[in-house]
C-alpha cells in the first residue's frame, strides 16, 4: 500500500519537531528516514503510524485518508526501538497477541492462531524458543520476536523505529540482510528510522535525509551519495574533511596550505573532501600544497585509515589509502607527507 504524507507538521510546546513536509512512498517500497537525533524522523514515523497526531496536513494509505483514523484501525506493523515486547508473555503469546486482540467476529480459531504463529516463528527461526520469556532472549532474538509480532497481523505497512540501533555490529548486519529478504517475501511497504547512514544506504530503495524537522533530500542511495543536494546531506552521508580559507591568486589559501582552483566555484570559501578522495604523497603537486603530519593509523578493513593533523586545519583530517600505498609509504606516527586531492565538493552556504 502506498503512503502519502502531505504538508504534515508538528510542534511540541515551543519547539517545532516537523516543519510542513510532504512525502510519497510507493507500494512495496522500502524507505529509510535518515537524520541526526532531533531531526524529526521518529516523530514523522509515529505520525504515519498514528501514535502521534499531526498539527496540520494529512496522511493517506493508498486512497484512504487515515489522518483521523485511530492507530488501532490503521493496521500498521510497528517495531519499536527497544522492541517493547510484552515482558510477562512468552514469545509465542507475544506473536499471537495481535490475532487474539481482534474482535470475536474477526478472530481466527485457536488452531489457526497456533498454526500462523508457529509458521512465523519458524520463519524467524525462533520456533525452539516459543515458550521463553523475552528477558531470556538475546537482543537479536528479541528483535526478531518484535518483527514476527508486527507481521502476525499481516500489515500492509511496516514501520520500524531504529530497528537495529541497540545491537552489536555482527548481529546488525545479519538482521539487515534478513529484513531485506522478509520485505521481498511479504511485499509490505516499509519505512524505517535510522541515524546510521550505512544502514539507510544499504537497506533502502530511497532514503529521506532529514534535519531540524525538514526533509533535506529524497533520493536513491546512489544518487544521494553521488549528488548530495546540500552541505548537510554531504557531511551526514560520510566522513568529511573541510578546507576553508581565503581566495587569492587562483588559490584557496589557509596558512601555508593551498588548493588551486578556478575563481568561479569559490563562493563559500570552503571545499569539502572525502577521505578516499585524498592521496598521500611525499611531494606536493602543482594543484595543491597540503602539508600534513600523521597522527594515527588504523590498518583495518579494505583501506588503511590515516588520521592527519596540520596547523592549517581546524579539526584533524582523515584519509583512506590503499594497503599498497601504505606498504610503499610506511606512514608512521609523526611522519610528514603531502596530500593530493583527486576531487572536492562545494556547496552554497547553509541558510538557517
Amino acid at each position, binding site marked *: 500500500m502506498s503512503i502519502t504524507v502531505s504538508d504534515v507538521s508538528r510542534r511540541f510546546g515551543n519547539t517545532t519537531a516537523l516543519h510542513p513536509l510532504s512525502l510519497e512512498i510507493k507500494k512495496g517500497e522500502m524507505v529509510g528516514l535518515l537524520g541526526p537525533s532531533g531531526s524529526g524522523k521518529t516523530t514523522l514515523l509515529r505520525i504515519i503510524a498514528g501514535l502521534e497526531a499531526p498539527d496540520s496536513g494529512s496522511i493517506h494509505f493508498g486512497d484512504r485518508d487515515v489522518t483521523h483514523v485511530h*492507530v*488501532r*484501525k*490503521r493496521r500498521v506493523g510497528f517495531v*519499536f526501538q527497544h522492541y517493547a515486547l510484552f515482558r*510477562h508473555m*512468552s514469545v509465542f503469546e507475544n506473536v499471537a*497477541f495481535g490475532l487474539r*486482540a481482534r474482535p470475536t467476529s474477526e478472530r481466527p480459531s485457536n488452531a489457526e492462531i497456533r498454526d500462523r504463529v508457529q509458521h512465523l516463528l519458524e520463519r524467524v527461526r525462533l520456533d525452539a524458543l516459543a515458550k521463553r520469556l523475552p528477558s531470556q532472549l538475546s537482543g537479536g532474538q528479541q528483535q526478531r520476536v518484535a518483527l514476527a509480532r*508486527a507481521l502476525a497481523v499481516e500489515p500492509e505497512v511496516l514501520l520500524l523505529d531504529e530497528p537495529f540501533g541497540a545491537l552489536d555490529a555482527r548481529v546488525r548486519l545479519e538482521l539487515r540482510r534478513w529484513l531485506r529478504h522478509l520485505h521481498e517475501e511479504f511485499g509490505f511497504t516499509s519505512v524505517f528510522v535510522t541515524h546510521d547512514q550505512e544502514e539507510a544506504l544499504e537497506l533502502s530503495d530511497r532514503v529521506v535525509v532529514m534535519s531540524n524537522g525538514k526533509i533535506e533530500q529524497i533520493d536513491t542511495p546512489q544518487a544521494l551519495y553521488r549528488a548530495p543536494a546540500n552541505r548537510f546531506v554531504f557531511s551526514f552521508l560520510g566522513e568529511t574533511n573541510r578546507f576553508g580559507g581565503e581566495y587569492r591568486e587562483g588559490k584557496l589559501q589557509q596558512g601555508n596550505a593551498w588548493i588551486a582552483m578556478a575563481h568561479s566555484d569559490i563562493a563559500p570559501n570552503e571545499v569539502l573532501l572525502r577521505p578516499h578522495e585524498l592521496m598521500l604523497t611525499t611531494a606536493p603537486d602543482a594543484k595543491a600544497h597540503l602539508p600534513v603530519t600523521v597522527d594515527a593509523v588504523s590498518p583495518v578493513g579494505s583501506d588503511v585509515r590515516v588520521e592527519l593533523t596540520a596547523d592549517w586545519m581546524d579539526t584533524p583530517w582523515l584519509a583512506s589509502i590503499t594497503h599498497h600505498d601504505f606498504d610503499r609509504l610506511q606512514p608512521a606516527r609523526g611522519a610528514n607527507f603531502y596530500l593530493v586531492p583527486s576531487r572536492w565538493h562545494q556547496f552554497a552556504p547553509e541558510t538557517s
Partner: protein
Amino acid sequence: MKRIGDGAATRLGLIALAVIMTTLFLVIPLAGIFYQAFAEGLAPFWQNLTSNFTREAIGLTLLIALLTVPVNLIFGIFLAWLVTRFTFPGRRILQTLIDIPFAVSPVVAGLLYLLLYGRTGWLGSILSEHDVQLMFAWPGMVLVTIFVTCPFVARELIPLMQAQGSAEEEAGVTLGASGWTLFRRITLPNIRWALVYGVILTNARAIGEFGAVSVISGSIRGETINLPLQVELLYQDYNTVGAFTSAALLAALAIVTLMIKALLEWHTHRREETA
C-alpha cells in the same frame, strides 16, 4: 576480589546490630502482645474475643477495610495512570498533593473532616438537612480511612509505571488491542505486584487506623468502635487482657496479610522461573 567495606568485623557487626534491633523493636513487642493476651489463661482470652463488643469491633473493622480497599484500588490505578501516561499542567503539583495524607497527622485529618462534615460544618449542614449523618457514625469513619490510606496504591504504582513507560501499551495498540484489552493483558500484569503490595498496605492501614477515626467515631460502643479504638477503650477500663486480646487479633491479621503476600510472591517467582 574483596569489595570495598567488606570485612569480617564489619559484616559481623552489622549482622549483630540488625539482629539486636529486630529483636528489640519487632520480636519482643510482638511476642509481648500475645503473652499479655494469654496472661490469665485461655478462658479470659476466649471470653474477651467472643464478647459482643469485640465481635462488633471486628465487624466494623472489616467493613471499613472492605469498603476502603476497592475504592483506593480504583482511585490509585486511575491516579497513577493519569500521572504517568499524560502530561498536563499541574501534573507535578498533583503528584505532591498525593502525599498530603502521609504528611498530615491523621488526627488533623480527622479534625478537618469533623469541621467539614459535622452537623454545623460547611458540607455537613447541607447533608444534615437531608438527614444524612456522617460524623459519629461508620460512614464518616470509612470516609476518613479512605483519605488516610489513599496514597498507598498510587505511591506503589507511580514509580513502577514511570520506569516501565508506555511502549508496551503503544505496541499493543498498534496490534489492534482495545483499551480494555490493553489494560487487562498488558498494563495489569505488569503492575500486579505493585498493586498487590499497595492493597496489602492499604488494608493494613485501614484495619489499624486509630488517630483519624478516633476523632470521628465519638466512641459509641458497639457502633463506632473498631479494633484499634477497642484496644484503647479496654485498656483505659483496666481490662488489660481484653485490650491485648484485640491487639493480638490486630497483630495476627497483620501477620496473615504478610504471609499471603510472601506466599503469592514465592508462587509467581517459581512459575516465572520454570516458564
